């Protein structure tokens, strides 16, 4: 986990710098357009009639559009200079659109006055150089990355963990009822051979079997919001057989693999979305999806069976596992009698 986290950060920072530089505007492209706009703005502001001013501005609509396009990729208000530059572009665009609307529009006069004031401000702040553009683009990229990262920290709690409290309570409550009625155990007996292959070190009477079964069932019927609570319950049950407590056991890795490679058979939510987009082939995705899922799950299982051999399994051996299971079941018995 340490390596994955460090790699994600390192790659993120590296590509962040790259993307920032990539987004930098080319001064060679910006400069001529800027000159064209500067010339036309000066001419328009000093033009004798509104019609003449409109003519000057109409002539620069192309470089203006290109500049505004480029400026849109830069951060708003990063430096005073860039902000003034961008406001000037906005102002020039407003003036140009006013000039096409009607040549003697009073809006044009005020737009021109606004433009003149802003242009003077840009000139005062100094020229736009290639350095200005690079700094602005890099700064924008850094800002975006920092904001996205911290925003995610908030949403991880508010949108994932908090809703999960309610969903976990609901589905674990239902599962408890199903367990007490003997439904889970009956289903688990039927799937014993499969479980023996996937989770060889989990004793057959361990409560993890029921939890794993329920999570698989929720996955298969595409019940997304029940699958996570039930799988987490299964992880906790498997943890009772984990002697190390901080290292993943073979069985926990297998549960992770089965869930992450998805064993959904009926993707209700995607079919629902497709119907909403008036698809004529909404449920035709089921067969190709089952085939694709089969390949991803099979690949995951086989690879995990190989990878798990490369490090020791912290799970209890057969005798220890049997002892732990007997203890848990005795506890459950006592609790039931109370």
């Amino acid at each position: 986990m340490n390596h994955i986290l460090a790699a994600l950060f390192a790659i993120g920072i590296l590509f962040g710098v790259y993307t920032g530089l990539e987004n930098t505007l080319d001064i060679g492209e910006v400069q001529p357009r800027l000159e064209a706009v500067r010339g036309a703005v000066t001419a328009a502001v000093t033009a004798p009639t509104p019609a003449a001013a409109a003519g000057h501005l109409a002539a620069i609509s192309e470089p203006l559009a290109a500049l505004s396009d480029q400026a849109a990729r830069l951060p708003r208000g990063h430096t005073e200079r860039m902000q003034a530059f961008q406001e000037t572009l906005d102002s020039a665009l407003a003036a140009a659109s006013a000039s096409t609307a009607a040549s003697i529009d009073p809006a044009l006069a005020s737009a021109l006055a606004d433009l003149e004031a802003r242009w003077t401000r840009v000139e005062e702040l100094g020229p736009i150089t290639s350095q200005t553009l690079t700094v602005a683009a890099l700064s924008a990229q850094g800002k975006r990355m920092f904001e996205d990262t911290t925003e995610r920290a908030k949403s991880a709690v508010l949108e994932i963990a908090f809703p999960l409290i309610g969903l976990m309570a609901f589905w674990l409550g239902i599962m408890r009822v199903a367990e007490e009625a003997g439904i889970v155990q009956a289903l688990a007996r039927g799937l014993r051979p499969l479980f023996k292959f996937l989770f060889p070190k989990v004793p057959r009477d361990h409560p993890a079997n029921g939890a794993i079964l329920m999570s698989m069932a929720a996955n298969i019927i595409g019940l997304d919001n029940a699958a996570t609570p039930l799988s987490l319950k299964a992880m906790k049950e498997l943890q009772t057989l984990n002697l190390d407590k901080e290292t993943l056991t073979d069985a926990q890795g297998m549960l992770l693999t089965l869930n992450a490679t998805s064993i959904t058979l009926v993707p209700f939510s995607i079919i629902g979305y497709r119907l909403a987009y008036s698809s004529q082939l909404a449920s035709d995705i089921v067969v190709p999806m089952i085939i694709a899922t089969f390949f991803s799950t099979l690949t995951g299982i086989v690879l995990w069976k190989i990878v798990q051999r490369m490090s020791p399994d912290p799970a209890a051996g057969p005798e220890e596992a049997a002892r732990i299971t007997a203890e848990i079941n005795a506890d459950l018995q006592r609790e039931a009698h109370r």
Partner: protein
Amino acid sequence: MIWLDLFNNWFILAIIFLIVAYAWIRGVRVYEEFIRGAKEGFDVAVLIIPYLVAILCAVALFRASGAMQVLQTWLAPAGSLIGMHSSLIPLALLKPLSGGGSRGLMIEIWETEGVDSLPGFTASVMQGSAETTFYILAVYCGAVAVRRTRGVLGPLLLGDLAGFIAAVLVSRWYFAAFLD
């Protein structure tokens, strides 16, 4: 189609009802047992927060860095080898990282290419045949406070890759054979 919708909306409700009804008939004290089970939920949901924040923030940084766009251009030739439409490559890259993001991308593909076009169809198949791997890793390990994962991410991501390749090839075949 309306029947499917009806089934979809009643199926889960029916299962829940059957479980509760059967348990009640068999003399299970359904209310007390429900409460006992539900109590566990709170601890787990709170326990996973540090793990979620660590992994999802790293993923968010990675996504915002623009690395995906670069990877996308590198991977486009490999994708076209198996007849993968270029719009599907970002979906394959995003799927293990973000559930909401990849759903948005799938809908975008539907809107630009058409929901019943081959890319739109394949996008749905890809979306349905994989999960948000990083989220699952964070939540599952977080729930039991496991820190060392023994390299399980490799099999998970390669499983996703195998699923995506299968999704593209199977969708092409299925689309040409039955739907076109």
